[in-house]
């Protein structure tokens, strides 16, 4: 759905990026100054491409050879890293700005739900100057959405929001992705968000693509152990209403999700942080941890720090990363081939399946 190839110098900074994204969320991930915002600006057409190619939905937006569809004809929504609200317009007029230029038939996204979810209904008559940082960011997000773009570029849209507010807004972005089928390029430093939203992660480093792949693949080898995650696929079982839990049936055992998730039988992906997994050599009992998955140790990397990330092949073939201390590895004699039970604190899973 989107093809990006950029070879260009910005001052002293050389950007050489080549990736494509499908219909879902493509995450741009990488350290500060790695070129994420620059890529966004090229896709939006705000920086002129001199060498490379930007294609959205089979339409060539720029080919570095003179073809340069101006930004206002691209129908690409941008949530900028800074809010960039129009200071002379009320919040309401800011929000409705894009709508003016959206053909009537393409105004897919209704105002009410967006404003409600963003919690900015009480700000409509205010001017941007007096808004708080997070309020500005939410209005800016709303403004981009309400233009009903055919591609959405979001540059750290939730950076200055508190955790509860983020959790409220994430479903909105998921709805854009799923219900409205708007492809999204999403810049974020929050692994949680990226993993939850993205089907593809492009990791930038110093202007180059360092890794590309699914969140699982990319974060499995992430440099920082807090970023390592696994994804387990399964099928929703009948919810346990009194206890507000829903089982996800997987070949390796049942993963318990918090909340009542339906419909029965739906295929879901469940996300597990490597740091939320403990391993036991026999099936434990009398423990509050309810999700216990059976498998065998596939790989125990050498290491010199206190922790290592062990690769466990679960029954059924999917892989699970578990971050454990080397001391425990030695004590329990964990080595490839050894049968283990992975204990996953169900409460540490995300509220909604991916």
């Amino acid at each position, binding site marked *: 759905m989107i093809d990006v190839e950029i070879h260009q110098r910005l001052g002293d900074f050389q950007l050489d990026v080549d990736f494509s994204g499908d219909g879902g969320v493509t995450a741009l991930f990488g350290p500060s100054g790695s070129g994420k915002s620059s890529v966004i600006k090229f896709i*939006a*057409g*705000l920086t002129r491409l001199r060498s490379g190619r930007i294609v959205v939905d089979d339409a060539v937006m720029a080919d570095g050879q003179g073809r340069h569809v*101006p*930004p*206002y*004809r691209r*129908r*690409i*929504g*941008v949530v*900028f890293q*800074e809010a*960039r609200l*129009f*200071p*002379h317009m009320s919040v309401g007029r800011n929000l409705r*700005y*894009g709508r*003016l*230029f*959206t053909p009537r038939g393409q105004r897919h996204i209704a105002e009410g739900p967006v404003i409600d979810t963003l919690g900015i209904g009480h700000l409509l008559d205010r*001017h941007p*100057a*007096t808004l708080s940082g997070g309020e500005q960011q939410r209005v800016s997000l709303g*403004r*981009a959405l309400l*233009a009903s773009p055919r591609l959405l570029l979001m540059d750290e849209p939730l950076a200055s929001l508190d955790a509860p507010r983020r959790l409220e807004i994430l479903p909105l972005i998921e709805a854009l992705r799923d219900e409205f089928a708007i492809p999204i390029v999403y810049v974020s430093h929050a692994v949680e968000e990226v993993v939850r939203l993205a089907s593809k992660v492009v990791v930038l480093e110093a202007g180059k693509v360092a890794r590309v792949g699914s969140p699982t693949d990319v974060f499995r080898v992430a440099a920082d152990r807090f970023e390592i995650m696994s994804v387990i696929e399964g099928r929703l079982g009948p919810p346990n209403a009194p206890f507000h839990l829903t089982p996800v049936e997987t070949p390796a055992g049942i993963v318990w999700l918090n909340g009542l998730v339906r419909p029965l039988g739906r295929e879901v992906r469940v996300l597990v942080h490597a740091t939320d997994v403990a391993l036991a050599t026999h099936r434990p009992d009398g423990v509050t941890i309810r999700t216990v998955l059976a498998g065998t140790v596939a790989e125990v990397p050498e290491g010199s720090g206190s922790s290592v990330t062990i690769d466990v092949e679960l029954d059924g073939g999917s892989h699970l990363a578990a971050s454990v201390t080397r001391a425990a590895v030695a004590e329990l004699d964990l080595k490839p081939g050894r049968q283990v039970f992975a204990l996953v604190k169900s409460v540490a899973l995300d509220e909604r399946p991916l």
Partner: protein
Amino acid sequence: MPDLSPDAWIAIALSFKVAAVATLCGVPVSTVLALILARGRFPGKALFDGLIHLPLVLPPVVTGYALLLLLGRKGLIGAFLDQHFGIVFAFRWTGAVVAAVVMSLPIIVRAIRLSIEAVDTRLEQASGALGAGPFATFFLVTLPLSLPGILVGATLGFAKALGEFGATITFVSNIPGETRTIASAIYTASQSPEGDGEALLLSVIAACIGLTALVASEIIARWFRRASS
């Protein structure tokens, strides 16, 4: 003000009309010119810029004389306008408007241009990304954000139009009731010693009108600043 002659009152009214119309015409024209100069890139831009500033550099009489040569009924452009559209500027109050506009153009254009160049281009980018074409962006973002400059331009233009004398008297003369503005009336009065009192009185009146316009513009500016915060 009982000692003011009826002619003087007519001059005041005329000046007011000329200044108001000059401002109303001058500001839009200047806005377009300022936009072209601020954003445009074309060969001869410097020359074009220079041309706009010319009335500032030359003595007003010369500008007035140039206007007479160009826009007079027998002038290059004037003859054309007269024949094809029946528009005559020479020796009409509309000519005084033209003189005032030309003389105040460099000042107004500069003020507006300064404001346009101060507009954060990132906001214009944001507008573009929201689907607004160059025109829409100009009218919805650039122009409103340049309002301080436009207001200053309008104020300066109005004041200048009130005070303009050299180019006006040279271009459209000093015909009572038709082209005798306050400035020309002051000149006329000052030609005889008995006129000194009237000249002074007229000067004070001109100053008062100018001050009123100024205060009005300050109030609008403050109101505008408050509205956007």
